[in-house]
């Protein structure tokens, strides 16, 4: 393993992580809710239970973040080299998988690990493992998808 020092951004990533943690803390302590993005989005797709407004508002905040950011600083570079077909398959897998597994990088990876939930630790290990294997297979074994 070689560290990619050209792309490694320790301070920005730590700082961005702290902002994400602050957002999680805010939603938890003010609204009493877990900032799990897949759960927040998935909850919108079920019959109305009177808790849609906060979900829409949170997701609207996420979508508007790059627009606000751009008012102050130029957006950092964003590379999506994945083809449309792979992107659709990936999106479907992420949608089904996160709902079936009851969480994603935020709900299990950040919130769950923060409260030392054994379920979330297992889930995080599972999706990290699957992600590493998938990239290894796609990039190094069959050179597909990018």
């Amino acid at each position, binding site marked *: 393993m070689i560290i990619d020092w050209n792309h490694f951004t320790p301070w920005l990533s730590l700082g961005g992580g*702290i902002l994400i943690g602050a957002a999680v803390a805010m939603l938890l302590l003010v609204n009493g809710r877990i900032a799990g993005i897949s759960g927040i989005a998935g909850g919108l797709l079920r019959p109305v239970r009177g808790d849609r407004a906060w979900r829409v508002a949170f997701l609207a905040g996420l979508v508007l973040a790059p627009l606000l950011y751009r008012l102050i600083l130029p957006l950092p570079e964003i590379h999506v080299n994945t083809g449309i077909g792979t992107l659709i398959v990936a999106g479907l897998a992420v949608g089904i998988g996160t709902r079936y597994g009851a969480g994603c990088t*935020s709900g299990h990876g950040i919130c769950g690990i923060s409260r030392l939930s054994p379920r979330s630790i297992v889930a995080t290990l599972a999706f990290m493992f699957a992600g590493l294997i998938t990239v290894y297979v796609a990039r190094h074994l069959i050179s597909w998808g990018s």
Partner: protein
Amino acid sequence: MNTLFAFFAGLLFGIGLIVAGMANPGKVLGFLDLDGAWDPSLVLVMAGAIAVSSIAFFAAKSRSLSLLGLEMQIPKSRLIERRLVGGSLLFGIGWGLAGICPGPAFVLLGTGMAKGFVFVIAMLAGMGLFEWLARKTKLQD
């Protein structure tokens, strides 16, 4: 009021993702690619986020109501079932294929990139499919 705070929490979360470099799928794939030149940034994002949010979860333990007087909705299940692992593995495969997880997907949508739009639609379709199957088989959330 709670809607307004949810909006600001989402905004802050999104800004955090952008600052951390996590809105860039190329960078996430650089983390998942152990065999190439490895970018460990994601580890520091998780460390920073967990450091702050674990304090909040500790503070939340002694509360039954939030600061706005809403019920604290923290998952209680400790069950590790096949569904949890299977779903997470499938999510990991999708994450590895594109380098996009749900949070960054919505941020990408906001950048106006067509690929962000395609991914979000596919992801929501997947979530909708889950809801449909769950209702058919009476699966609990």
